[in-house]
């Protein structure tokens, strides 16, 4: 695509020579001919991007080598923050929680989205409203998602789950779901996955609808049932959508903050703190800025790790 754009620029130069209106440009001149205009157009973007991304990114790396507590004088600390992180039981727990959280929310939301997309692709027209309803959960603010599920998990009989358990004679299983560090993380995982399912549903459903009518018709003429068409044609051909959905969900859950902040506040006993929440707590409630910066670099490393394929692809198609 972009190669076409490039070559068109080449012929562009030629056509202006034919017109004779412009003087001949040497390769270097042609290379920088647009530069003043280009930088003028780019200037606001570059300045704001430098402020919001480049400077903070570099500064985060620098801060991670310093010991900064509150308004006290910063001390150079070398790799001390990273050593301290490795020895901090709370941080090790945050890493474990992040792994569990990221993998589970992605598996649940992409799995559910995929299943619902395949189901709906069997009857596209009659399932429009159900699809929109499930998709709507994805449009709810993440902070509000946390609150909505707070009502479901409430510990006493006024929580929806406990009420259902009591009503069905399973009252013995009623539980303070958010008050128990064993169950709280799963409460958060389910709430977040519930909200996120809409996107995989949309992406994968779109992939199923992109399957060529001819292929399906041919299979139908050959006597394939709806379920066989689903199993052998639509499901395999929806895989590109699944891959995209997995990537989006991994990235989203690594940076998740709002739902956890409202639903559990990281508790009980820090059992629902992911790294993205841990850094907030260390830097903005304990004011250990250098320590928090070191933790965010660990988060950044995880983000880069899952993004490598996307970054390579983006860089390759960009010219």
């Amino acid at each position, binding site marked *: 695509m972009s190669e076409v754009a490039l070559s068109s620029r080449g012929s562009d130069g030629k056509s202006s020579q034919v017109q004779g209106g412009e003087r001949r440009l040497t390769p270097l001149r042609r*290379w920088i001919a647009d530069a003043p205009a280009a930088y003028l157009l780019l200037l606001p973007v570059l300045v704001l991007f430098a402020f919001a991304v480049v400077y903070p990114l570099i500064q985060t790396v620098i801060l991670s080598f310093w010991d900064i507590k509150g308004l006290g004088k910063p001390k150079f600390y070398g790799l001390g923050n990273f050593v301290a992180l490795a020895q901090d039981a709370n941080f090790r727990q945050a890493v474990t929680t992040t792994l569990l959280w990221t993998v589970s929310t992605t598996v649940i939301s992409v799995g559910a989205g995929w299943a619902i997309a395949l189901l709906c692709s069997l009857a596209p027209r009659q399932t429009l409203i159900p699809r929109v309803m499930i998709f709507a959960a994805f449009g709810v603010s993440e902070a509000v998602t946390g609150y909505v599920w707070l009502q479901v998990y409430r510990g006493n*009989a006024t929580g929806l789950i406990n009420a259902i358990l009591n009503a069905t004679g399973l009252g013995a299983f009623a539980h303070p779901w958010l008050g128990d560090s064993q169950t709280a993380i799963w409460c958060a995982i389910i709430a977040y996955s519930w909200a996120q399912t809409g996107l995989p549903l949309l992406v994968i459903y779109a992939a199923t609808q992109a399957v060529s009518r001819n292929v399906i018709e041919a299979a139908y003429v050959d006597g394939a049932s709806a379920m066989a068409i689903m199993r052998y044609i639509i499901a395999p051909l929806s895989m590109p959508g699944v891959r995209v959905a997995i990537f989006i969900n991994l990235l989203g859950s690594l940076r998740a903050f709002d739902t956890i902040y409202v639903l559990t506040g990281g508790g009980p006993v820090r059992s629902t703190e992911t790294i993205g929440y841990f850094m907030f707590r260390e830097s903005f409630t304990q004011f250990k800025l250098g320590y*928090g910066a070191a933790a965010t670099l660990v988060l950044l490393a995880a983000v880069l790790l899952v993004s490598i394929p996307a970054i390579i692809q983006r860089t390759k198609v960009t010219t």
Partner: protein
Amino acid sequence: MIAKSPRWVPYAAWLLSIIWIVPLIGIVVTSVRPQGDTIMGWWRLDHIELTLDAWIRVWGKFKLADGFWVTLQLAGIATIGTMLLTPAAAYAFQFLKFPFRRTLLIIIINAFVLPAQVIVIPLFTLWRQMGLIDNILSVLIPYVGLSFAWSVYLVKNFLEDFPKELVEAAKIDGCGPITTFFQVVLPNSLSSIFAVGILQFLFCWNSLLIPLLFMRSELPLPVIFAQISGQYDANWDLQAVAAIVTTSVPLLVFLIFQRQFAGGSLATSGSKE
């Protein structure tokens, strides 16, 4: 589908989706029942009485009206900023030649993977030194600056399919690069700019972490709401109204512009095949 699909499919989809939104129904029902009833559980049928009491009292109890206005301002300004600045950059990257073009482009479009957590600590110290804490700029600059990572990519992607002949014709007619942008490219790429605007509006309206850290007095709705939901008062009817107020605008925008949202969010995640 050509083959006859099983008859249970629509029923299963309806059942599932209704169960799916039960938690949301709960919030809506809670907001229109008397406070005493909500404490017993919003699903109780033994005493049915609907009231708009909570919808009336909530404005005096919480600063939701102020928050609504602040959120509208922040999201609105950030959205306009991104919509105004992105097309020029995308045009320059797509149609102009200049030194460091490829390097700058690769850095900007790959920054979309950065979580907000990575930038907030240095920005916090920077804003404190500059006295910008509690100034709307402290929130607007990261909102707009971070958006370029995906918005430039999205608009540039759109411009790749833009008819080159138009740009060349403008050049032959004597238009400079900037005139070409304003006269030819910009008027014809409004659909992609609009998609960028919708995404940016949703992101900014729902943003919690950045205003939570940088704003003190004029708080947007998600921050106010997070404080409200952390209270232990059993004013669940009021909290439910606050939840609906907080999320109603983005939810409506999201549902109305689903199509643009879908196209935009896919392009921003680098999935254009």
